[in-house]
């Protein structure tokens, strides 16, 4: 620290730098003492391994981002590892364990949803087709059975094309890779 003209100020700045140096030394020794203990007791983490993993991951990302590399990541599938090909919608046919009908694998979930009476659309469908009949016998029971789902909110959604949206989801799910 350069000595200012004023003697007083010089003494002050010398004092303050003296104290600062003392505090700094103290902090340095704190850290050194802690690190010494960690190292001596074998508590330090294996930094080499961690850094190696980081390096490998950075390398990998560069390689994958490089368009010249064979598009392993998002390539269109021709054959799988066993030499097989598969259609966009799985075409294995088996019997539904709920109703016994023969169903195609790729359409099993939407079928099962209706078959088991689960999901929004199934409940709506039941409401629409059977509400009229049910109403004849007992209005209250139909309301109690379907009230959470037959409100205007869900009806509107059906009108707005929920099946369409769901269809899109389905498409996205299986055709994502193309």
């Amino acid at each position: 620290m350069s000595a200012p003209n004023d003697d007083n100020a010089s003494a002050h700045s010398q004092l303050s730098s003296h104290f600062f140096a003392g505090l700094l030394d103290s902090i340095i020794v704190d850290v050194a003492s802690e690190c010494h203990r960690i190292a001596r007791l074998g508590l330090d983490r294996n930094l080499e391994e961690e850094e190696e993993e980081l390096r490998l991951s950075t390398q990998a990302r560069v390689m994958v981002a490089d368009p010249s590399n064979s598009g392993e990541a998002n390539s269109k599938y021709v054959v799988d590892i066993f030499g097989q090909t598969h259609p966009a919608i799985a075409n294995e046919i088996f019997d539904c364990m709920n109703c016994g009908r023969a169903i195609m694998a790729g359409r099993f979930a939407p079928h099962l949803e209706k078959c088991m009476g689960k999901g929004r659309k199934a409940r709506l469908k039941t409401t629409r087709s059977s509400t009229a009949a049910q109403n004849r016998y007992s209005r209250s029971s139909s309301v109690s059975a379907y009230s959470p789902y037959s409100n205007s909110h869900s009806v509107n959604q059906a009108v707005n094309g929920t099946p369409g949206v769901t269809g899109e989801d389905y498409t996205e799910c299986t055709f994502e890779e193309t």
Partner: protein
Amino acid sequence: MSLKNNHRRNGQIPQPCPHLADFRSRNGQKPFRALQECLRVKPLGRAAIRRDPDEVPRCSTCGHYAPSRLYACVACAAVYCHSLPESSHAAFHAESMPTGHEIAVDVDRAELFCCVCRDQVYDRDFDAAVVLAHTAASTLGSRLTLLPPMLPESQKKRRRVDYRPWTPDPKERFLMERDSSPLKRGDEDSSCLPWGLRGLNNLGNTCFMNSVLQALLHTPPLRNYFLSDRHNRFLCQQNSKMGNVNKKNAASHDSNNNKKKNLRLCLACDMDAMFSAFFSGDRKPYSPAKFLYSWWQHAENLASYEQQDAHEFFISMLDGIHEKVEKNQCKPQSQGSGDCCIAHKVFSGILRSDVTCTSCGFTSTTYDPCVDISLDLEPNRGGSAKMASLKSHHGCNGETESCGISTLIGCLDRFTRPERLGSDQKFFCQQCQVRQESLKQMSIRKLPLVSCFHIKRFEHSTTKKMSRKVDRYLQFPFSLDMAPYRSSSILRSRFGNRIFAFEDDDDEPDSSNESSSEFELFAVVTHTGRLDAGHYVTYLRLSNLWYKCDDSWISQVSESIVRAAQGYMVFYVQKILYYKASEKLVSS
């Protein structure tokens, strides 16, 4: 000074220097324990050595008290400075006095110092005294709460036993050959491909289910359990049939389908069927239709034809396996012990949560079982605090990119760091008897056999009424050491890394637990695309080769693809498994 020579893993005390060894043999542990009275600890502060609480230590030779590097001779309690190595009054004291005054203690840091070696030295009994002083300062009266409170239904520590290989005796061999037929390998191409590798048909927006199933079908302990016939679906259904016959009259609202086909809903049975199918050698993609049907019966609120969250499915499925199995058992199992069902035996661990009063230091501890760990994704700010100082050595300052990458280790560091709870979340301190601001810290009391890390990529904000997906890249290692996140390590670092048996570990406390903290990556479930329209894919590691499982499509990929992928659920298995003595008596 070569660190490697003195390197001991995981808190093992290094060899004492000759002067310390001398001191110990002459005085035993008495002087160190006596120092305990001079140990002053402020709550959440560091231990210091003071004869009186208000003492300001000064060097007996020069009178300096700052810059502080003052050492009190353990033998005669005189204080000397060691600020300048050339004119160390502490070293001079050691030299000038007859033997016995070589060991001193840093008055501000409570660290032992050998004035002749001029190096910090370590002693188990001294550290024990420091830890006891810490806890005495922050506990009710003299009750020491170092050992964790007994867990509910205290976990019996079963002995670890050596692995004994088993081979069938002639009678068993005859039975095996008579009642089974060997699996044939397929054609030439498939013969070198691993067993159990098989695609899963997408049944309509079910990639969330397929991705998790692939990971589970190749989870080593789970796979071994089912392939060892530990849950035989035929026996299970048969047993339930007998049970149903008895209860038939009582059960009036059993679902029509079950009555019709006399099938008891059991996700474990469906898993058993899947394992058999997957490891049969058949490479045609499998349709998990029965499993979907069973799961929808179990998880009614999730039963719908739409895309769902793979993690939610994972939790639901484990719960399904647990629920159906536990119904059969009479005795209640302690939470987290994993003795209830295979799902918990494989995945469940125990988390420890410590809430510390910032005013008096009193800590309240709770234990909770968990089947996975959900981690927040935030960018590392220059790495964890522990790594920051060391990272700078490697020129991180210039590489801003590497400092900003999120890493799994960074997430775990964040998960276990002490967190200051807001002033609106004041915790009632039993000692202070008022609500105080507090620190909360998580740690892992018991590591599961298989650790599943769920990266919270889907944010649902109720305030903004929207959800969004976080696409940020997360680096995850292929080998992971969980030791720093164990409760014993976290507690130890809270007490200044003193040598002390902090936690009554589930495993043998004296053996180095490093092997049981080492994990290997074996499956990664990734998500690509948007929150509402995306796709799940699983990468599996079999014999150190990576395979991509994209619904029906199985392909081999390079390691780089996996490293660069967007991990959503990352599965690690313990590298070394140990056997515990069985409680059951096995008939010979």
